[in-house]
């Protein structure tokens, strides 16, 4: 069977020969025009006047559009209609799009975009958390609060307490391929759009609104992205809409790509957070209660900030059973880029909060941080502990017929930024005592076993001792070693997004055409799903043609996000294949006087009783027998019911787990450091493709470590992003990868009925990078008695300063 095989990425051969086409590589019709935005040069104020004459007269310029020239909707927001394509009367961040240049070449458009003469009445921007709190600049009416038990009383009653604050920086996606779109006008006002997007349906919806046509008038196609990481969930809307509007106006093909500096200045990034914490625990380190206050800087528009901040709250427990817990979340509006989805979607920030608490407690008690963590873990499945017998979890219905709130027709229902939901009042806390702060029972906790094995394979105890001895000598190079676990919730927290569709054709020669709603951004989704299809038909994956995501083939898709790609689309494809296989089996069974259950699809052959034929012969026979060889497939995730306002229910179908041990060396004279070794054991369930999964884990770890170490976003007091190029924003390079890098998959199947019992693997490994951050903290801690209380990112400068704060070298 082709599932569980380690096959290369489906387009790997095209990539190594340079034949793989991205949006900017697609051959365009003659006369194709190129677009660029004129951008705001201040962070906040009213537009007094905008003179675009010089831009209009520049060489090669065909047209220059401002908001008043847009024929229909002027909105590219995925949620709250608060994000105009082109600014009207006010600007809200430095880099906001003011006008659109349409020109004969990319360079001509870029040059003319600098020639807008704009006068502003400038105002003081709201940039920091303090400024936003003081100005009352926030999304939603006030903070969201999720509670379990009485955290304040539990902390007051505890033998020991700690408190502190951690600043957590944001992160630039730095997908290697910048944002890009190409619009091709069709007959009758229709539009075809090629977009580098994780969410073709949202592009379709926003383009349709901007052109004043129904969604059926727009077709969006996405073959691949050169990286997404969440940065192409909503941030491609502006380019696609601009291209479509300009194409409608000129009747010519229109293409737009951001150069890297524009991309970094214009588009949103990972939310930066401040998390204040207070925890009460006993002498053995068992936590009685924790309080978190999370402050998220969301930027100027709402975008996906509400579900991001929700997910940060939903990961404030990470792997730990917190008897009492209170999480307060502030979503602050600032005059900066609109922070957006980024691999983990708030989960990493929430998780770092509790990992900081664990690290702080371990330091306070002088306890081994791994032992402390184990003592606070959720219980393993089947381990009864001292709790009451587990009550049967109420099974929420899988659909909610007839009960639907009024929904604003302009709402983009397929966006995670949508706020409508169906019947959240059905959400209930699950029983059993092994429950999260939001009342979901943890019934699949794999971390006891994962931790045991990883401790052994990483030789943690001996290395920990060696690090202690090394540091005791007191030289300028210090070492640090740290462990951190990951428990990550899998499903969109907006329940209705957990659905997917597929379209499968079998041709008369036995070749298969595969299409589904997921998009390929390098993660290997297409290959995994093709392996599913090949397995259902018992043929080689090479017989399955993987085709570009296309809104005309599968409609109403959710973004390829939340790690859900293979879970949802794999199941939808399986359903479609099984429909066709069932029809073929029934036909062949009747032909050969047996029953359908006796028809076997295996090794490229179809066996019907004693008859044996190739899959191609079977397909041909079915065609001649007038059997439909085309089917759609559909899937929706069961068991979900979640109320995000009350913070109660089951937002996740299951959890994915993993753990890492990182070791670092720090030069305390300069703050420079290196990751010497990383050992990872990660739970991908019964992996659909171990090679692709290990690739996701390695890449996720390095990206997570980059987020918390070298990747620093700096804005000046005017709200200008000063790290807007790879020369000033440092993502990990080849030399930053751990010298020793051991990655293994946890041998286990998903306890829930997912596609071949696999688990989602896109986002969870990113949070394994937390161990690298904690290892730096461990190394720094050797320089003094106090807890280092390191903030993220721990750049060399920050490490240097932390060493000095501990009194070393002063």
């Amino acid at each position, binding site marked *: 069977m082709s599932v569980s095989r380690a096959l*290369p990425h489906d387009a790997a051969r095209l990539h*190594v020969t340079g034949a793989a*086409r991205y949006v900017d590589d697609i051959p365009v019709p003659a006369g194709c025009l190129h677009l660029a935005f004129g951008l705001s040069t201040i962070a906040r104020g009213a537009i007094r006047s905008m003179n675009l004459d010089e831009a209009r007269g520049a060489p090669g310029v065909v047209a220059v559009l401002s908001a008043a020239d847009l024929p229909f909707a002027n909105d590219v927001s995925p949620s709250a209609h608060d994000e105009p394509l082109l600014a009207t009367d006010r600007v809200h961040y430095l880099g906001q799009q003011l006008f659109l240049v349409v020109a004969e070449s990319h360079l001509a458009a870029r040059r003319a975009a600098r020639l807008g003469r704009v006068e502003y009445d400038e105002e003081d921007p709201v940039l920091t958390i303090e400024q936003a709190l003081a100005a009352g600049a926030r999304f939603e009416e006030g903070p969201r609060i999720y509670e379990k038990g009485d955290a304040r009383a539990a902390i007051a009653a505890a033998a020991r307490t700690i408190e502190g604050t951690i600043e957590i920086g944001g992160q630039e996606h*730095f997908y290697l*391929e910048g944002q890009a779109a190409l619009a091709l006008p069709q007959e009758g006002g229709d539009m075809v759009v090629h977009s580098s997007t994780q969410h073709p349906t949202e592009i379709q919806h926003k383009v349709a609104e901007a052109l004043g046509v129904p969604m059926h008038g727009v077709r969006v196609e996405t073959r691949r992205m050169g*990286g997404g990481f969440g940065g192409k969930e909503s941030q491609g809307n502006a380019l696609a809409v601009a291209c479509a509007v300009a194409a409608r106006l000129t009747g010519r093909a229109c293409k737009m790509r951001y150069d*890297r500096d524009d991309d970094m200045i214009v588009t949103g990034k990972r939310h930066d957070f401040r998390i204040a914490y207070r925890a009460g625990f006993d002498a053995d380190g068992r936590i009685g209660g924790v309080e978190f206050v999370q402050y998220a800087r969301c930027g100027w528009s709402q975008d996906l900030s509400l579900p991001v901040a929700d997910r940060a709250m939903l990961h404030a427990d990470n792997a730990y059973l917190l008897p009492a817990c209170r999480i307060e979340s502030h979503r602050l509006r600032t005059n900066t880029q609109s922070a957006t989805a980024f691999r983990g979607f708030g989960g990493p920030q929430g998780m770092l909060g509790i990992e900081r608490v664990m690290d702080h407690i371990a330091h306070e008690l002088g306890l081994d941080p791994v032992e402390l963590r184990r003592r606070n873990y959720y219980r393993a499945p089947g381990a009864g502990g001292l709790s009451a017998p587990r009550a049967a979890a109420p099974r929420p219905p899988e659909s909610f017929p007839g009960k639907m709130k009024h929904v604003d027709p302009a709402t983009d229902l397929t966006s995670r930024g949508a706020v409508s939901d169906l019947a959240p009042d059905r959400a209930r806390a699950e029983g059993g005592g092994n429950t999260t702060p939001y009342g979901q029972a943890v019934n699949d906790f794999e971390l006891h076993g994962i931790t045991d094995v990883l401790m052994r394979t990483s030789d943690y105890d001996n290395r920990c001792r060696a690090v202690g001895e090394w540091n005791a000598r007191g030289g300028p190079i210090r070492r640090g070693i740290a462990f951190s676990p990951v428990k990550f919730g899998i499903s969109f927290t907006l329940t209705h997004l957990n659905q997917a569709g597929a379209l499968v054709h079998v041709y008369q020669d036995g070749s298969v055409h595969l299409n589904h709603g997921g998009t390929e951004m390098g993660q290997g989704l297409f290959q995994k799903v093709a392996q599913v299809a090949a397995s259902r038909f018992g043929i080689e994956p090479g017989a399955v043609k993987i085709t570009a995501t296309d809104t005309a083939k599968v409609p109403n898709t959710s973004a390829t996000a939340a790690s859900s790609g293979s879970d949802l689309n794999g199941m939808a494809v399986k359903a479609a294949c099984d429909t066709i296989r069932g029809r073929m089996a029934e036909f062949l069974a009747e032909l050969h006087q047996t029953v359908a259950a006796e028809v076997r699809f295996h090794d490229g052959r179809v066996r019907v009783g004693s008859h044996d034929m190739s899959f191609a012969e079977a397909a041909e026979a079915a065609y001649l027998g007038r059997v439909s060889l085309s089917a759609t497939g559909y899937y929706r995730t069961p068991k979900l019911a979640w109320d995000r306002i009350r913070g109660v229910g089951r937002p996740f179908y299951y959890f994915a787990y993993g753990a890492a041990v990182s070791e670092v060396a720090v030069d305390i004279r300069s703050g420079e450091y290196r990751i010497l070794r990383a050992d990872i054991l990660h739970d991908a369930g019964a992996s659909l493709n171990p090679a692709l999964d290990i690739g996701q884990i390695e890449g996720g770890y390095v990206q997570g470590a980059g987020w918390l170490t070298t990747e620093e976003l700096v804005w000046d007091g005017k709200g200008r992003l000063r790290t807007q190029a*790879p020369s000033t924003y440092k993502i990990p390079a080849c030399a930053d990868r751990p010298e020793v890098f051991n990655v293994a998959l946890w041998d286990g199947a998903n306890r829930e009925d997912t596609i071949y019992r696999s688990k989602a693997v896109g986002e969870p490994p990113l949070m394994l990078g937390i161990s690298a951050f904690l290892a730096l903290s461990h190394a720094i801690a050797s320089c003094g008695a106090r807890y280092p209380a390191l903030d993220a990112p721990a750049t060399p400068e920050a490490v240097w300063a932390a060493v000095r704060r501990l009194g070393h070298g002063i």
Partner: protein
Amino acid sequence: MIEAVKSRSRKRLITLTVNGEEHEIAIRPNAMLVDVVRDQIGLTGTKSGCSSGSCGACTLLIDGRPMLACSTLAVECDGKAIRTVEDLADGERLSPIQEAFLDQGAVQCGFCTPGMLMSVTALIASNPKPSHQEIKKALEGNLCRCTGYNAIFNAVLQATGQDGIKPIMF
């Protein structure tokens, strides 16, 4: 002023040998090599990642040396031999380094891949058994956001027959 603009935009004729084929092309004097190769010669395998010489996606070989096409003026290449990713395979037969990228899962989104391959090709041509340190040095200008570099590193080791690295695909 207008005269200056005109002279800047006056096209020049240059000769480039790209992947063994000679091209005589008219270019603007300020045209970057990456744009000439992609838009005028039509070889889109070479990628434009940052346009500022920092990411390595546009790496190609000029007279055998790895260079950043986004930071090289096309006029400077008059009469020179350019080699791009499209030239690495011999028809259907991939080069050992291309095979190794497949075998090690060194390709995810693929956008850095052409530049990586050109840097590695130049390295191996001059140094058939590079040390770990030399591999790091050769790849320091090529950023990858997907893989974490481990598979890429192993691909170089496999292609140079080192450390007993075997394909991970089965």
